[in-house]
Each structure stands twice: as structure tokens, then as C-alpha cells.
């Protein structure tokens, strides 16, 4: 199990479009990817679930990646976050 924290910089927060791309990215890996904000947790590969967290600019979210390709997925997702929001 791998995890990392990320603070959203994009002023619109994690709105529908980047959330959609993130869900697609997360679905590429065999590992399960969960995102949590405060007490709420969402399956990162599910767009509506992810949008339900209503993640805003300046908020910190935690990724939890678990599975055989977790190493690779963790690195890729962290880079994806930095490049997109």
C-alpha cells in the first residue's frame, strides 16, 4: 500500500473535467486507488464518486494505492496531479 498527499492548486478545484481525466488515469492500473478528503473517501476511478468530494483549491487530498502495480501507479498519479490541477 502506497499513499501520498496533494494540495490542489487549480483555482477551480478538482472540477468535472480534471476529475474525469483523473478517473481515467486511475482506471489504467490494476491497483485500487482511493482518494480521501477529511473523513470522506472516494474510489478514484469513479468520476461521480470523485466529484462527490467537491475538492476545492487549497484543499489537501490523500491518495491510497493498493495492488501489484502500486509503485508505478503512485508515481504516475502524483505526476498527473502536479501537471493537471
Amino acid at each position: 500500500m502506497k499513499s501520498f498527499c496533494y494540495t490542489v492548486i487549480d483555482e477551480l478545484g478538482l472540477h468535472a473535467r480534471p476529475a474525469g481525466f483523473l478517473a481515467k488515469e486511475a482506471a489504467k492500473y490494476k491497483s485500487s486507488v482511493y482518494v480521501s478528503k477529511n473523513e470522506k473517501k472516494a474510489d478514484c476511478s469513479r468520476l461521480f464518486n470523485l466529484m462527490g468530494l467537491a475538492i476545492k483549491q487549497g484543499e489537501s487530498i490523500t491518495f491510497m494505492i493498493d495492488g501489484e502495480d502500486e509503485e508505478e501507479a503512485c508515481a504516475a498519479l502524483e505526476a498527473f496531479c502536479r501537471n493537471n490541477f
Partner: protein
Amino acid sequence: MEKIIGITASDGVVIGKFMFFGTQKPVVEKASPLSADLEKERFHSARREAIQTLRDLFKTAVQEAGESHAEIFEVHAMMLEDLDYIEYAESLIEREGCTAQWAAQRTGEQFSRIFSEMSDDYMRERASDVEDISSRVVRILCNVKDLNLNDIQDKIIFAGDDLMPSQTIQLDRSKILGFATQKGSRVSHVAILSRTLGIPSVVGLGSGLIDYHNKTAVLDGDNGILWIDPDKATLAFYQQQIRLRQQEEKDMAALIGQPNQTADCITIEINGNIGCPEDCELVKQNDGSGIGLFRSEFLYMESKTFPSEDVQYEAYKKVLEAMEGKRVIIRTLDLGADKKVPYFNFDAEENPAMGFRAIRISLSQREVFTTQLRALLRASAHGKLALMFPMITSVEEVKKIKQIVTETKAQLIHEKITVAEDIELGIMVETPAAALISDLLADEVEFFSFGTNDLTQYTLAADRMNPKVESLYDPGHLAILRLLKFATDNAHKKGKWVGVCGESAADIRLVPFYFYIGIDELSVVPSAILKLRSAMKDLDMKSLRNDRFLNI
């Protein structure tokens, strides 16, 4: 000939064939004669078709309207791939033995409800996206064709119930003279789009437009009127209007980039009045120097409860950013009198114009006021903000307001939130009282802006909405002009500046008077900015001794 009155959403007049595009409502049967597996297969194949259409639309929209307008289609396509959405529909098919279309419709309703119950505004708006994608799938499954302009050769007046974002983008705009819709308001999607495109449009025309399908119509976007089968005189009148307008537009365009200056080189600032963030675009197009009046009421009128600090902050920030450092004067809440909202309990008043309204509400409902001020002050970091307070009648009110502003600012700074340091505070001078104590008020604020609509009503004791006394309502009345001069002189003695933001700011007849008393700023509807510039261009104040408005 028939005359239908709606809400003006985008200026301009057009004459043409009226066509009503009704979205055929698909009939959705629940019981299915097919097996669950077959229904699931139908669901997926319709979903894939919808995704493909959306991707095509995305590509077209990127080219035609730019990436930001196109984004919505990409998001819609991604939503149709959401596993929760798919699984919900599949389980309905299995559990209920229902048709794919019924499952798609129910799934759309379910997810839309989840979004509409969320506390976040942005997410709440996504409810309509879910409905949009689901009805797309349902239409495919029921074999209902999307509305199609392609079969029509001529340019037409496009009418419909209300237009969804996805419908408007699919339209071949070269065929559309104007928009007429049964529903909608000035801030609905079609209104904003038509203003951006510069196509006349009238919304909120009410039901029954379908009866006029294929008839000749005049769409008067300036006055929010739709004429069906216009008679000869009406037609001739509007043809003349169109010709005049074309000439005027040509003349006006030549004034963009020119100064607001008289022939003898006296200058004035001309700003735009706006009602919602989208209107900034109009002010910029018409070369306004900034925003002289942003009526914050729209946020309250469009909302179901008092809008939250964040919602307000986003709207104010949008305006400040759009104006790129040009001054934006935002007027705090001006509810009451003729502007009511259902969620705020306005007791019945004998005389609402003289009742509980504007700053009187703000000062008694502290929380409402503080929420608005916090949003405004937070937004101040994104541009050049000035604050203006409506319905002032005493110095004490202004002192109290300033104290609340100072406290709110201190609280924000304490929370480590950036607030601009140079926010100008001003008041509306719209009561005779404010004008008469303007010498004292000028000590308290940086500027005055004359709200000439109310000032005229209160001074002349004439309600301009009452047809019997309407003729007494005259912003050029000597009493009003004297009040304006008196208050302007008092402000200038204290080194403060003065504007006019009421409707009479755009009254060409009064322009010499404004220069004569030394008004510093006029704020008008965006479409009047260049008209004023044009009117003052040939004005020579030195040769104007006999103007009737100067003899006060």
C-alpha cells in the same frame, strides 16, 4: 398581428420566419419484452453511440466556440463512462425487468438528485449535466431525433422551450437570426450565449409559441417583444429601425478607442452598469472605462436562499478579473421595494418604496451584510474594487457601515486572507436627504453616485411605475438638477469625486449639464457608452450658454 411580451435577453431587431423546435418527448415504457441481458446490451450500445456523438460535438465545438465552451461535451462523455452510473442502470434492468430507456431515465433522475442536494454550488449545477446525458441516451433508445436545422435553407428566428447548452452548440448559427424561448431569464444559458454572439433574443415568452410555427415574425430584442404576422406599418417601422441601427453601429464602431471628450477637450469617465458577471463582456466590447454599478441583487434574486460567502466571492472575483484592473464599483444588497425574494420575509408594507429596503435591511440583518462584505473584501484581491452603499439618508448610517467594513476587514486579515488596501467607499445619493447633507457625507466617503431614478421619484413624489403620475417623473426637473449641482459642489469642495449611475446618466439631453456641474463619471447600460461618447464629441461648452438645463 399578435404581440407577445417576454424578457429582453440580447439587443437587436430581426424580421424573419419563426420556427419552433420542440423537443419531442420520448415515450418511455417500463416493462420490457426482452431479456435483461439484451436490455443491458441496448443500454450499452446507446451509451456508446451517445459518447461518440459527444466526442464529435467536442471536436466541432473546439473549432467553433473554443476549448472552454467545448469542455462540457467532453465532461458529458466521461460521465457516461462512470462505473457508478453504469452499474446503477444495469442493476435496475436486472431487478425491475425494465427497458434500457426506463433504466437510463431513472438513473439520470437518481444521480441528478444526489448532485442537486450537494452543498457545493458547482456540484449542484452538475445535476443538469446528468439529466442532459441521460436524456441523450433515452432519446437514442426511443429513436427520437435531436432537433435539426440542417433541413432548413433560410435564415430563421429560432424558437424553443428553453435551450440546453448542448442544443445551442449544435446549431448552425449562420441560419439563426434570433432566439425566442418560452422559459429562461436574463442569465439563462441562451441569454448569455446570444449576448456573446450578438444575436437578438427574447426569453420568458410563455407557453404556446408552437402555434406560431412557420409564421412571419419580428423579434424586438431591445424591448423584449415578439410580433407575429406584423402588419404593414409595424413591419415598416422595424425595417427602418434595422436600417438606422446598421448605420449607427458603423458610426459607433469608429468611436472605439477614442477618448470621452467634448470638442473643447473636457473629459469624463464613462462606465458600464451590469447585473451579472457575464455583462462585463458587453462593457469591454463597448469600450467602457470600468464598471460604475454592479447590482449585486442578481445573486440574491437567482438564488433559493441567501447566497453563501463563497458563491458571492466567485461572482465578484469573476467581475474583477474580467475587468483586468479597471475600477469595479459593486453596490451592496438593494433588495426591497420592487425587488423581492421569496426566502426573505418581507412583511406587507403600506409604502415599500419608503420601507424596509437596501441598506436598511443590511444594517438590521447583520449576518447577511457581513457575509456579503466578507465576499466582497476577499474578492478585492483580484482587481480594483470600490464599494457603494444604497439608500443612505444619514451620516450615522455611513459611520456604522464604515465601522462594520473595518471590523470585517480586520477579521479577514486576522484569518490571513488578503484584502486590497485601496478599496474606495462611496454612497448612492438617491434620497433628497443625502443630497441635502452631502457636505457632511462627503467627509465620510471617497465618492458619490447619483441614483437618479429614486432621487427623482422621492424628490418629485412621483412613482414612475404609476401611469397616472408618470408624466410628473422628470429627471431633468429643476429640483433634481439643483440637488445634483448642490451635492456635486459639496463633494468637490472636499476633493471627492461624483458619478451618475441612474438611467438619466444616459440621457443625451443632460450631457451638457453634467459637464457644466463637473460630474466626473457616468455609468450607463453598456450599449449607451458609445452613444454618449458620440454625443459629447461635438459639444462645445463655451458656446452653450443658453442650454435650458444650464439655467438653474
